[in-house]
């Protein structure tokens, strides 16, 4: 832990208020207002620091519990002394990694989606990652799921009214909810058709491919700005895959250098490398092809390497030179353009694989409901869909459906 201007120490739980009074020997300051206080170790009466402190009474706090924050001077010794003193207070212990978030989740202050997003926010390295994590943490997907769940609950209530209160008072014999289901399913499918969040978090996979000795490793090093791969005149120098993370224009990429592709190698190790290279090309988001343009894999960006010493035909997309740096800016611009297609738009929340699988489950269940004529089977399919949404965020249970049902219908003989 490097020294810093200030250090913030947070205490969460039922003893948070006691700790403030114990260390300041004064009553609690007004809630949510900064107060300047002398912190004294109650064990030995020694002054620890002069600090700003904040008192947040639960449950409307970040963790849902009583919360105290000490803003102390940021020297290592100061923070260590404060932490030692706090650890000696009755009922207090050091927080485990992620424990404040876990408590917020347990106490229902945030849902699972927001907790995931908070993890992403703390881990964000690029501007695009930060913006997206913030969107999710602020509940963009949670709000959407809540709205879908509310729609489903209302539709389920209409079905259940027909099933459980048929003929009672103003409940009719049948109900047609297909139009609402088509609308809801369309919205789920729109979310599912968007790029996944993993590309944003893990980076776009860019594979440098081509025959041996085509200058892949030189370009790899030039793009990274360091000598990460061995470059030599000997064909087949690169045998295994080399991956390196890279940022361009606020986007995360993973640049991958692979063995040159050729069919006539007798070297067993090189053959394994070539096999891996083919697989990397198949799963790449972007392939940079340095070889005969006609042999480029479909969708690859065809590069003309060594443009400082060679001229290329017009069947390439871009000419460049790792040696002189010509064309590298143009390549970077192309990569950013591809990234913008492959990652969520800045204002658009994207799903991670877990979220997408659950939304797909809900969408499939709604499709089942649409094809079932029997309201009983429709209700069963909607129950499955509600379960998928519950798994996404938290749990609603049958009681929420009854609230929707009894709010909407006058029921009872």
């Amino acid at each position, binding site marked *: 832990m490097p020294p810093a201007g200030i250090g913030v120490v947070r205490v969460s739980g039922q003893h948070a208020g006691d700790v403030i009074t114990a260390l300041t020997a004064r009553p609690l300051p007004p809630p949510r207002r900064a107060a300047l206080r002398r912190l004294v170790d109650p064990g030995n009466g020694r002054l620890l620091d002069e600090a700003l402190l904040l008192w947040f009474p639960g*449950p409307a706090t970040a963790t*849902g519990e009583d919360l105290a924050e000490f803003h102390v001077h940021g020297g290592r010794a100061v923070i260590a002394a404060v932490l030692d003193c706090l650890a000696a207070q009755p009922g207090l212990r050091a927080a485990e990694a992620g424990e404040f978030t*876990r*408590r917020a*989740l*347990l*106490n*229902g202050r945030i849902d*699972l989606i927001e907790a995931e997003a908070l993890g992403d926010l703390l881990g964000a390295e690029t501007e695009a990652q930060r913006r997206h994590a913030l969107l999710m943490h602020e509940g963009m997907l949670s709000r959407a799921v809540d709205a879908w769940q509310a729609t489903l609950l209302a539709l389920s209530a209409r079905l*259940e009214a*027909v*099933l*459980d*209160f*048929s*003929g*009672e*008072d*103003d409940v009719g*014999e049948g109900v047609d909810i297909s139009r609402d289901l088509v609308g809801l399913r369309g919205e789920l499918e729109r979310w599912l058709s968007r790029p996944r969040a993993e590309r944003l978090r893990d980076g776009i996979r860019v594979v440098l491919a081509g025959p041996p000795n085509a200058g892949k490793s030189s370009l790899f090093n030039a793009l990274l700005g360091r000598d990460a791969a061995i470059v030599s005149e000997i064909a087949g120098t690169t045998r295994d895959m080399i991956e390196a993370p890279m940022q361009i224009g606020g986007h995360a990429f993973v640049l991958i250098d692979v063995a040159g592709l050729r069919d006539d190698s007798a070297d067993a190790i090189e053959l394994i490398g070539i096999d891996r290279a083919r697989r990397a090309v198949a799963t790449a988001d972007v392939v940079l092809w340095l070889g005969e343009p006609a042999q480029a894999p479909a969708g690859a960006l065809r590069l003309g390497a060594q443009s400082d010493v060679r001229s290329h035909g017009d069947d390439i997309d871009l000419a460049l030179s790792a040696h002189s740096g010509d064309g590298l800016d143009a390549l970077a611009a192309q990569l950013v353009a591809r990234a913008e297609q492959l990652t969520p738009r800045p204002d658009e929340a994207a799903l991670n694989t877990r979220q997408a699988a659950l939304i797909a489950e809900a969408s499939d269940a709604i499709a089942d409901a649409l094809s079932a*004529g*029997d*309201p*009983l*089977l429709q*209700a*069963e399919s909607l*129950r499955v869909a509600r379960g998928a949404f519950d*798994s996404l965020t*938290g*749990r609603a*249970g*049958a*009681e929420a*459906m*009854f609230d929707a*049902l*009894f709010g909407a219908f*006058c*029921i*009872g*003989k």
Partner: protein
Amino acid sequence: MDFDVIIVGGGHAGSEAAAAAARMGAHVALLSMDRNQIGTMSCNPAIGGLGKGHLVREVDACDGLMARAADAAAIHHRMLNKSKGAAVQGPRVQADRLRYRDAVQATLAAEPNLQIVEGMASRLIVRAGAVEGVELEDGRRLTGRAVVLATGTFLGARLHFGLDSIEGGRIEERAATAMAAQLRELDLPMARLKTGTPPRLDGRTIDWAQLERQASDEDGWTFSAMTAGRRLPQLACFITRTNTTTHDIIRDGLDRSPLFSGAIEGSGPRYCPSIEDKVLRFGDRDGHQIFLEPEGLDDHLIYPNGISTSLPLDTQRAMLRSMAGLRSVEIVRPGYAVEYDHIDPRALDPDLRLRAMGGIYCAGQLNGTTGYEEAAAQGLVAGANAAAFALGKSPVLWDRATSYIGVMIDDLTLQGVTEPYRMLTARAEYRLRLRADNSGTRLTGWALSNGLISNDRRMFHVEHEAQREALRTIWQESDMSSKDLRTAGADLKDDSGVRRSGWDWLRFPEVEPSHIATLVGNIPLVANDVIAELGQDARYAPYVERQEQELARLRADSELRLDRIMDYRSVGGLSNEMIERLNKAMPADLGRASQVRGVTPAALTAIMLHARRAA
């Protein structure tokens, strides 16, 4: 007098509890204030309905008495939801009030292990935290190892007629106030609920010709699998409607309604609102249906279903007379509201045993439910378990995956009640498996292994199972094309000759068991209800299989026992609200913990980790 089990109360819960305990082999006393009132239907003269009909069939599958008593008294049959899937069809009968009561009393009288004791319970005899019996008002003492409290609305009950209110459980009967005080002293969690009943009408003053008629179902279904056929002549029900004049009269009387004057503090059911509630909450509706139901063959009393009220008598008369057919109707008994104490059922274990004191079991309206059927089902559970306890056997536990009874017991003991609890099919996640027509297949074999089944029922069940298996084999081994089925009369499209077994074809809505029978021929003698039941099994098979998988997944996670958690404050990170609810419900395993209201998946993870650590 010494017994194994003492049942306090002779309503639907108490009668069923007494019969179940006696079937289990316990020596049983049934304590009632008036032996002639045992089995009385205090509100509507009907048994069954959606969800409720399932409960009656399940009680019957465990050899209980309600279904047979209903058959003996049925004067109008209606299968609700007949046009919908079998899983939500609900059998319902109008029952002749006197014949129903007589049938219950006759069944109880025929039970050799059971003695009816007339008297008023005044207090429980308690020693060292366990019950030892019941003391009566006249000083007599009944001793026994287990006591089932099935006291209905008689605990601390108060009746409201307009702004007048009196102590009492049912009209013209007394409330069990002394025992209510004792239960309150035991510091049991108690709360108050209200319910209501409509006025009773003199049928001779109704102009029937003006009203829409609803005839009894023609097909001969009965409630109990053991009933051979219908015995009584069938009567019709009739339908009238409230109108804007009725609603105006009700609004004018609201200032004299105890519901709105603040005199009633308990909450009433949302699904059985008083007419005052309906008019107030759904003021935009221009009318509400009222079913006029006969109370008996030799009785001119009519029960107007849908107009439960506690308005003053003059308003009741005026609003009734504003409706078609009722212009000159006479009220025989006014409608009223009842407020009563109930135990928070989260204080009970899944065998309906009170956790706070050994040997006490609770059933029926006392646990915050409404309805004869819900009461009877709990009576069965409490009676069977009180007997098991008294005789040193293991508890008899109904499972929510295989019965509505299990759903209800789970809901009550884990979630508690905020309004009188009524069974609804939507409460059962595994609704497609839990049909009214397969209750015997689901439960009788299981109940037999728990000692609840008499010999007659056992023999019936063995035959039923044998027929089911024989027919299933024939269906599964048959082989036919859509063309074959079309010749047999099924309205199927031509699908290029795919061949399937009859069992697989039955999942197509166009295919009926009769089509298969035409093609297969030579089917051994199988009862019609076995054919119908197995036909529905085949129809829903794909969905039921999916639910089985879901259930298996759920079971794997949810079987983690939580017995070692004594206080949820010891589980880190739960909110105070969750701690309070979990401490009240004390779920036995993780699956049940997940049903406690407001418990989040994250909280379940914390509970799971804690339980694993403690193990």
